[in-house]
């Protein structure tokens, strides 16, 4: 931590910043009455990036260029934000209770970096914890839309800067110096004469006896010593030693394992249970109870719960997708498609028409749906990895018949999310089971349940028509039609409250989110991208990057077709038509680093794609090997197929707080994109999904991983952090799809490309709903 001295405070509130020529504002925050120093700030509104258009036929700005989903989330936080605060402790540590969920994206580390930077305190002295549900925060405790750093960067800095300023003032009294003579370094205040007083020693003296509003200036970006440098995860040691505690690792007194016997078809309901008493008498089992979603069992071990679930004999009422298979849902989507309507563009105009199908996919994390619940007659306590804890608290309170204030919701570290933890299905279910049994429970979904009854990324189609004359694309129409996506986790409420501020007119939640997130980076003249929805019979939700991977994949494949028709190189074509300089820069970077256009053997090819979102932009160049020798590699119980052999990714998020964390998020997004393009989907048959294990649902495994991966973090552009968690998925899926199309000589039209071929596994039975664990594990020890 290097020494820095802030620009001297002046009475006039504005000073010219030498760095960017903009006026340097004071930011308002608070000192809070507390035994040791507590400084706080409200979440504020960030400037909306102005659209930039410059190329062939300029497209009018689409909604996301004016106000995107992140602006909306940031704006929504404003009137209800209340305070986020940093506290300085007597031992010199600084704590910050982050009102967001850590599910692997690295926000506890990046938030700690922001605090450390602004306070001049060593990173290892900053402790970031996850806040319990704080109902007063309303919309400002939703972790989604890759919005965490976008919306919290400035408020965290303001709180930290106020704390530092207050420490300086306390030290000035202590050291008999003027504040302007003092500097801060590594968690201490230094005087010109070399005297030093630590933050820990000042923690009480700097405390405020009253809560009051104060103002402060922030560090110049040129003064950053930590933000923008690669840092390792602060929770890495806990992760590699097994000490990191997830919901199922907590030791809550009285909380015993519980599982649910679930229906054989999606959302079936219990009609009757035939052997409740027998199952209650099984070894270790304490309770059997019918709940909304099935028959709950509680016991001494999860193994005994598995036995009990398998032993239950239940008659079920039909579910919400009864009798349906993939082809039935596809037919429903076809009926719901909004027609394409090319404007009359004259006789020389030609069109590219394309039609894509994206099958159901699963957003299951490795940690299955799970929650601990302890419900008493007048109060309840819940522990779970939750990205929308306030909505969860409301729903749980309603379900239990308790006031919201009687329900305490703890946000635990999450073992992955990918959209899954936006919902609180397990928390709600655990609360119900705890209430019905009168005992605390540790509820876990079996993996098979997690795939078959858990949330899915809905099936969709995308129809595209692009009209062109030589050298110009005149119009681009995309009609995306999807099984309904459930946004009932709080995002919908944000949209309702913000409706008057939206630039999108009278749309549904889903249509609004689609319109606020989908942005064509190309100047293709009149551009319309519309969503229509059908069939609400499925358990759906956002999957990492929501609509973008499918919409982007379809567009980039059409871009390749347009380039082919115009006899242009796919990369040169994109360069020519991209609207935005940042997009061009990342595209050029991957083309250069990935040696775009190099000679490759037949059956192998490169693909390239670019995607703007979350105030950032990313480009991906992928190389694929579709030759039989590779595609038919034989590994036991493995989906091999074409292999992505190399990926080069360039990412510009405006300002990368932690470039090492950003690289990790891109890597993960790339693995998701590869899976969506080539291997991973759910097959619907007779009202249920066939996939029931990780050897059925083909998420990327080591044998699918590109041996060569290069992620390039671009130097800061906007100077403000954009979103990272979801950014990499869409461009990766699209680049892999384009590479596949070029290697095989035909544009793929369904995803994943292998969905309609061999199933590749023997489906597990649906009754009993979960498989028994094998007993031959010792035979496989290696």
């Amino acid at each position: 931590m290097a020494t820095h001295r802030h620009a001297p405070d002046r009475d006039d509130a504005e000073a010219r910043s030498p760095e960017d020529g903009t006026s340097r504002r004071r930011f308002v925050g608070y000192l809070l009455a507390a035994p040791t120093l507590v400084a706080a700030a409200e979440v504020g509104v960030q400037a909306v990036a102005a659209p930039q258009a410059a190329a062939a036929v300029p497209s009018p700005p689409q909604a996301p260029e004016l106000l995107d989903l992140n602006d909306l989330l940031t704006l929504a936080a404003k009137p209800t934000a209340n305070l986020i605060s940093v506290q300085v402790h007597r031992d010199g540590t600084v704590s910050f209770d982050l009102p967001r969920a850590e599910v692997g994206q690295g926000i506890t580390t990046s938030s700690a970096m922001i605090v450390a930077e602004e306070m001049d305190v060593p990173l290892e002295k900053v402790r970031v914890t996850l806040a319990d549900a704080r109902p007063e925060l309303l919309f400002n405790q939703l972790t989604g839309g890759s919005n965490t750093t976008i919306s919290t960067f400035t408020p965290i800095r303001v709180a930290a800067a106020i704390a530092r300023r207050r420490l300086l003032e306390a030290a000035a009294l202590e050291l008999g110096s003027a504040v302007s003579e003092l500097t801060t370094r590594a968690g201490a205040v230094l005087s010109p004469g070399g005297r030093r007083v630590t933050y820990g020693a000042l923690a009480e003296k700097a405390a405020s006896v009253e809560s009051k509003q104060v103002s402060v200036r922030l560090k110049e970006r040129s003064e950053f010593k930590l933000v923008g440098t690669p840092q390792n995860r602060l929770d890495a040691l806990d992760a590699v030693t097994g000490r990191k505690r997830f919901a199922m690792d907590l030791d809550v007194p009285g909380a015993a394992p519980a599982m649910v016997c679930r229906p054989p078809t999606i959302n079936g309901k219990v009609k009757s249970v035939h052997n409740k008493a027998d199952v209650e008498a099984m070894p270790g089992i304490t309770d059997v109870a019918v709940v909304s979603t099935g028959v709950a069992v509680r016991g001494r071990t999860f193994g005994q719960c598995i036995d009990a679930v398998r032993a239950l004999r239940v008659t079920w009422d039909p579910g919400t997708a009864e009798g349906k298979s993939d082809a039935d849902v596809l037919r429903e989507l076809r009926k719901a498609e909004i027609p394409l309507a090319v404007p009359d563009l004259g006789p020389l105009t030609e069109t590219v028409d394309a039609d894509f199908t994206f099958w159901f996919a699963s957003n299951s994390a490795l940690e299955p749906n799970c929650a601990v619940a302890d419900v008493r007659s007048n109060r309840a306590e819940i522990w779970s990895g939750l990205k929308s804890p306030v909505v969860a608290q409301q729903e749980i309170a309603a379900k239990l018949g308790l006031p919201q204030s009687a329900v305490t919701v703890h946000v635990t570290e999450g073992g992955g999310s990918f959209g899954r933890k936006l919902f609180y299905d397990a928390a709600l279910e655990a609360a119900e089971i705890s209430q019905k049994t009168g005992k605390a429970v540790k509820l876990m979904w079996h993996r098979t349940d997690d795939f078959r009854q858990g949330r899915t990324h809905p099936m969709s189609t995308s129809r595209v028509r692009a009209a062109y004359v030589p050298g110009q694309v005149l119009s681009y129409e995309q009609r995306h039609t999807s099984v309904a996506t459930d946004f009932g986790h709080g995002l919908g409420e944000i949209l309702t409250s913000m409706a008057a501020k939206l630039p999108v007119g009278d749309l549904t939640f889903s249509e609004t989110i689609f319109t606020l997130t989908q942005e064509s980076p190309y100047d293709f003249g009149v551009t319309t991208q519309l969503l229509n929805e059908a069939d609400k019979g499925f358990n759906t939700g956002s999957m990492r990057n929501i609509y973008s991977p499918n919409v982007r994949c379809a567009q980039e494949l059409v871009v390749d077709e347009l380039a082919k028709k115009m006899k242009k190189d796919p990369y040169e074509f994109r360069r020519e038509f991209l609207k935005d300089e940042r997009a061009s820069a990342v595209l050029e970077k991957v083309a250069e680093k990935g040696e775009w256009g190099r000679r490759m053997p037949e059956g192998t090819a490169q693909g390239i794609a670019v995607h703007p979102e979350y105030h950032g932009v990313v480009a991906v160049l992928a190389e694929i090997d579709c030759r039989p020798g590779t595609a038919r590699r034989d590994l036991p119980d493995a989906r091999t197929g074409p292999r992505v052999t190399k990926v080069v990714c360039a990412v510009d998020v405006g300002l990368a707080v932690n470039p090492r964390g950003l690289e990790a998020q891109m890597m993960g997004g790339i693995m998701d994109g590869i899976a969506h393009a080539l291997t991973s989907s759910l097959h619907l048959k007779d009202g249920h999904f066939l996939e029931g294990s990780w050897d059925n649902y083909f998420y990327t495994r080591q044998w699918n991983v590109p041996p060569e991966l290069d992620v390039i973090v671009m130097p800061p552009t906007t100077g403000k952090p954009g979103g990272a968690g979801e950014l990499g998925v869409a461009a990766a899926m699209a680049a892999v799809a384009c590479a596949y199309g070029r290697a095989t000589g035909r544009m793929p039209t369904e995803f994943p490309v292998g969905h309609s071929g061999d199933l590749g596994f023997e489906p597990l039975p649906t009754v009993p709903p979960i498989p028994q664990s094998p007993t031959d594990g010792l035979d496989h020890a290696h």
Partner: protein
Amino acid sequence: MPTHTFTLNGEKVTVEAEDDVRLLWVLRDLLGVTGPKYGCGIEVCRACTSHINGKAFNPCSVRVGDIADDDEVTTIEGLPATADARLHPMQEAWLERDVAQCGYCQPGQIMTAVAKVRQARAEGRDIGDDDLDEIRNICRCGTYNRIREAIVEGARRM
């Protein structure tokens, strides 16, 4: 209820459980050893990977009744002691490469990695791309390339 005795992370433990309860639940639910994670229960995801007598195995698929008195079970919690260090060299490599994202699969990944390196050594060779391709452990965050780098680095240190 039957009693089972075995060595867990260097210490003799005794636990009461029906013979057919899988070892994963004995470790997690009865002994409070939570490093091995549940991800499937059918020996597919490998999140619970631990060692028995130095070999990698999946306790989700072994009955506690099949564990003998003289069996030595090592979970991630006991791995450092096998190298007589604060951290095993593989864990050090993991930290250096900043591998973990959510961290849920990481104990199993590390236990697999150590066994994989030992296996290659026993066959008189260094770990290579083909060995890495065979690893079945799921990482749903997709931090696969860093896992590959860390295994190679950990092997160098082991």
